[in-house]
């Protein structure tokens, strides 16, 4: 057998394999890692809110007690620029769906005084939970902020948004979850 065609064939096969690998890789956004949490029960936590309760006392939020309505958990921080950009969208979604779903902001690696000033400047529409020690973030597998988890009425994580959310994306998902039986 002559070497020339064999070497050429081997080279073509190698290049084809390389192109296939690259083509497969370029179809995925390298910024997103599929969360293994989708479809699993949301890990429970109890966190204290920055805002006092209606009676003026401490407001403790137990995630497991939030069943029967969809829950939106938004991990954010004041030093996060995309969080500033999506905050207005989240406020609009919360005002639209606030009576049919529960919204919580979980602050990630930040100072309470900075959080309070940030929210006073940009508005607030739902409780802000302080994730001391990032334990909730670790339980949810948060890589960075913003990340938003949407939990259905049965306490199962149905979606994770990496980066800023859109009104349309959140609205269509929440409408679908709200329509599901409890």
């Amino acid at each position: 057998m002559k070497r020339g065609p064999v070497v050429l064939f081997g080279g073509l096969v190698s290049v084809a394999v390389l192109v296939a690998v690259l083509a497969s890789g370029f179809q995925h956004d390298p910024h997103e890692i599929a969360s293994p949490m989708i479809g699993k029960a949301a890990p429970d936590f109890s966190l204290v809110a920055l805002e006092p309760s209606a009676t003026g006392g401490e407001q403790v939020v137990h995630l497991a007690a939030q069943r029967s309505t969809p829950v939106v958990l938004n991990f954010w921080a004041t030093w996060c620029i995309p969080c500033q950009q999506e905050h207005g969208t989240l406020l609009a979604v919360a005002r639209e769906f606030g009576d049919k779903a529960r919204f919580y902001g979980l602050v990630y690696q930040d100072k309470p005084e900075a959080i309070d000033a940030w929210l006073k400047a940009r508005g607030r529409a739902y409780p802000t939970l302080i994730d001391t020690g990032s334990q909730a973030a670790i339980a949810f597998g948060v890589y960075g902020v913003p990340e938003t988890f949407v939990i259905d009425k049965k306490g199962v994580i149905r979606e994770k948004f990496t980066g800023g959310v859109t009104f349309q994306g959140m609205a269509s998902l929440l409408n679908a979850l709200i329509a599901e039986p409890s």
Partner: protein
Amino acid sequence: MMLLLSFALAQPPEDPPAAEPAAPASEDAPALVPTVAPDPTPIVGPPAGPPRTGAELDAATRQIASQLRCPVCQGLSVADSPSESAVAIKKEVERLASLGYSEEQCLFYFEASYGEFIRLEPKAEGLNLLVWGGPAALVLVGLGIVGWMRLGGRKTAPARAAVDPALAPYVEQVYAAVGRGPS
């Protein structure tokens, strides 16, 4: 490609704020500490061993943290990274280890939430075998190709042209001069 993740999301500033209890905004303000930490039992079951303390706990924490990837770094383990995220994960590792969870239970707990990416070394199973066996396979294939080409080269070397009898003595002189005869 996965390493590019660190550019996808906002990460804490280089000098992140220290984890400290919140300063109360008023007398009614909350203490701002979690009342219940996430329970790993539904994910990994009850602790496999007795609680750890002291040097045993430190060694187990270090051992487990060295196998976890810092989620906001590039190629650094949780044990080696000073980032706030890595420090938080290390503290969680220490908490789990102190409760008696085994090394594999701890690794599985983080893998359940972050995915296999959190393991600094992928498990040698499934497609991951390509990572482990691929380089060795490529070396073997390369050696095979080199060997085949050398062997094939000898077999397919062009035959020498028939020597003109009139020139044969001169050809022999040339072979003698270069130290080799006709093949």
